[in-house]
């Protein structure tokens, strides 16, 4: 831990409160962030982390309480003022213009111009190259940001912060979309930033990261400050305990499940990728899924996890090779509607983009696949719609003000449960879950795991993908590992370890 350079904190948050139309998002929070430290902020979704960060970054301008930056009271009116005060924020959802080059993004709003006001692309590209080299980011600054991998896009945001000479960097769940290698690179970058004396505010769910990086850890719960602790004086269990205010039940299931008959079988499945160096999104995939079993699909980003689920669900628009057998008979889905009718459900990986209907109520979001169950003589019946939705809310213990509430009023975990409920109403034989716990807080995760277990015991077959290995290890009966679209290993529950899976996931697959 680098020595704390000064007694005056880099940021002093004093009695800050924020209300959104009656709901308290932050309640009298006071934290000191010391210069040069890496301060982790932990808390479940809705604990007030994002609100606090938005106040620091000048996104939220109306709040009670005081903010002191290096001892000076400040009240930012916009993000530019925060930037000028040396604070940069790397949002969870990156703020890049896809069509502009990496260099243009780094200098967006502060373009270098030469004589006569003409924009000076070459100088910006050189400066960008320097920054990117420093960050081990092997990309061409002239490449459009939209063509880059998420990890590289994030480094562009960090390069932007560096070019602003920010002394305080806020990172909001920076590893949520990164591969293991990219995470390692990010951690090296963080180490280097700290050597320069940059103060970092690190927001994360992931205890591994927090305990590896942080000097001090602050826990927020329901908008209130629970505690700030030096890392070496606390434990993971204590922090998770403080976050949820209760012990999380172990996700390890007491009794092993008994797999039943084969419900889904995939033989030699391949999906072409025209115009790409790899040629195949998926190549020669074989597996069986039994009833009452959770099959995990592990793999790095781009390994083909989502692509595989799309094939099984009829959501892939390009032609496939190979055979898919559902309950022993050959199936070929050309549209998700056919997969739905045959008894397959898919919970997509990006809840906002692929799952939610933000304008509709909880009731409609749950019922949307099975509206025909709620009609009388062809017309939708209000009471039947409500009853069907209420049953799902009850069965899945969804926390909502009522089935007529807007879906956007629910927390991420409860929204995910609504989507799960939507599919359970279709009475599926097979449920495909694509990273269902992404952006879901710890407590809700445990509930989702329990739900999966319960569904399996009722005879459902589940295929689960996840970007977090511990999750797969805890929940799955078997784990299939993909690397660059090929199947590189399959492990039973008792033989799988993180080590083995990572080896298989990073295995180099011989030429195309």
């Amino acid at each position, binding site marked *: 831990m680098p020595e704390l350079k000064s007694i005056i904190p880099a940021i002093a948050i004093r009695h800050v409160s924020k209300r*959104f139309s009656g709901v308290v998002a932050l309640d009298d929070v006071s934290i000191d962030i010391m210069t040069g430290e890496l301060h982790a902020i932990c808390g479940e979704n809705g604990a007030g982390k994002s609100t606090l960060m938005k106040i620091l970054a000048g996104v939220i301008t*109306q709040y009670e309480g005081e903010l002191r930056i290096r001892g000076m009271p400040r009240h930012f009116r916009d993000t530019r003022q925060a930037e000028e005060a040396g604070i940069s924020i790397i949002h969870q959802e990156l703020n890049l213009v896809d069509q502009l080059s990496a260099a243009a993004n780094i200098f967006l709003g502060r373009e270098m111009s030469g004589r006569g006001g003409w924009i000076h692309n070459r100088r910006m590209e050189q400066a960008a190259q320097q920054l990117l080299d420093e960050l081990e980011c092997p990309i061409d600054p002239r490449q459009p940001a939209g063509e880059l991998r998420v990890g590289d896009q994030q480094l562009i945001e960090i390069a932007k912060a560096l070019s602003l000479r920010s002394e305080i960097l806020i990172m909001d769940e920076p590893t949520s979309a990164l591969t293991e290698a990219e995470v390692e690179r990010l951690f090296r970058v963080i180490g280097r930033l700290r050597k320069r004396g940059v103060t970092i505010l690190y927001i994360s769910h992931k205890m591994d990261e927090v305990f590896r990086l942080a000097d001090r850890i602050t826990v927020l719960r329901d908008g209130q400050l629970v505690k700030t602790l030096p890392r070496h004086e606390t434990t993971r269990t204590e922090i998770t305990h403080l976050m949820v205010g209760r012990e999380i039940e172990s996700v390890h299931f007491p009794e092993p499940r008994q797999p039943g008959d084969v419900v889904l079988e995939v033989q030699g499945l391949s999906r072409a990728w025209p115009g790409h160096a790899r040629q195949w999104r998926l190549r020669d995939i074989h597996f069986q899924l039994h009833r009452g079993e959770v099959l995990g699909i592990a793999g790095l980003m781009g390994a083909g996890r989502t692509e595989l689920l799309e094939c099984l669900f009829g959501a892939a628009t390009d032609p496939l090779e190979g055979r898919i057998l559902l309950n022993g008979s050959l199936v070929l889905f050309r549209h998700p*509607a056919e997969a*739905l009718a045959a008894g397959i459900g898919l919970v997509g990986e990006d809840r906002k983009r*692929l799952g*939610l*209907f933000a304008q*509709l109520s909880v009731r409609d979001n749950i019922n949307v*696949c099975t509206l025909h169950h709620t009609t009388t003589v062809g017309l939708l019946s209000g009471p039947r719609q409500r009853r069907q939705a209420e049953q799902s809310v009850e069965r899945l213990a969804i926390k909502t003000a009522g089935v007529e509430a807007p879906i956007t009023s629910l927390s991420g975990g409860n929204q995910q449960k609504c989507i799960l409920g939507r599919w359970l109403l279709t009475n599926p034989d097979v449920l495909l879950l694509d990273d269902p716990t992404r952006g879901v807080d710890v407590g809700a995760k445990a509930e989702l795991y329990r739900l999966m277990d319960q569904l399996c015991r009722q005879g459902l077959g589940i295929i689960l993908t996840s970007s977090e290995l511990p999750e797969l290890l805890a929940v799955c009966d078997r784990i299939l590992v993909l690397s660059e679209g090929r199947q590189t290993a399959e492990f039973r529950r008792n033989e799988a370890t993180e080590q083995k899976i990572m080896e298989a996931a990073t295995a180099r697959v011989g030429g195309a």
Partner: protein
Amino acid sequence: MGPPPDSARSLLGLAGRYRNELGLAIAIVLVLGITLIFNQDYLKNPGQNVKDILQQTSLLGIFALGAAIVIISGGIDLSSGSVIVLCGSVCALVMLVLAPYDIFKGTYNVRDVGLAVVLLAIFTAVLTGFLVGTFHTWLITVIKLPPFVATLASLVGLRSLAKILNQQVTAQLGNEQTTVRADDVTFGLLRQWWVALLVFLVLGFLCWLLMNRTVIGRHLYAMGGNEEAARLSGIRVERLKWLAYSLGGMTSAIAGVLFVAKIGSANPSTLAVGYELNAIAAAVVGGCSLQGGVGLIPGVMLGVLFLRVVIDAVAKVVRAGSDDYQGLIVGFLVVLAVAFNELRRQAGGQRKELFPGLLGLVTIPILALLAGIVVYDLSGPTARGLQSGGIAAVCTLVVLLVCKFLQGRRQATG
């Protein structure tokens, strides 16, 4: 104060859910009331006035319903005006071509073609609307044109097509014309004011039933809100789009038939020019979001009525051709309605500066100039008119500048 009783609370909830519709209804009553204070024309011949307003509202409303469904489903249909012309022309042409030959006079009897031909003409017109909608769907879902582009092409193209078709068919019959007469006696019955109203109300009810009480309607809302999520929920989005754009085309066709009946001819150069934008404006005023997924059929119907009532009220007060002011009013109301919703959405206890910085400084004279021109025009072509226009402009300028100054100071101190 204790909590309100159950009945009051459910009433409040209802009012909350139909806030937009309630607001429109109140606005309509207000506009009518204010007009009555300034101008008693409505009272001189109340029956005729009501009939006029209702007929015009219905004619616009019929295809505004189609436009609204397309908008709710996440698309846009810019072609209504031209589809009205094409389908109206088709209707007139069918009656012209199938007119029976009168052996005694030695001419075609276009005044009395018979009920069967009239029905066939109407059917053909609606079928044409369906075909246009189908073509749009093909362009949008298969060729992957943005809806804006696909229907823009129709907007420009179909009016021209109607003209060519009219000329070609009439030339073949021996007398080339662009305007096709449609003065059959039976067909002329459709010009009665209540026919349009009845069609509008029935269509409105059917659309409400479709959008609110059927699975397809709910799926249309879902698709408008999030198309990819709808597809992954097993909804056949292509079919839904087919339905939406067909309804857009068919409602325009029905309106086209009624317009031609009312006018007695189909003239591609003048009929329904710019009406597509009125329909979209009515949908927006009625609460539809151009982003899709939002909007209620009763709201759209009230939006149309509101639009017509305001246009009519201004015409009554100004005693000028309402057409001259129509565009200005529609534009003003669209901005007002959307701005109102936008400001209400943003209102988080935060007071917003309306004229910030240089942009605000340049906007203020623009608004003053607009106010001046309107007042000048209202005062008639006299020296005094110019004077009052100038005064209005200067007053607006001063008021807005003071407003900007005060707001700027509050921002600086607050």
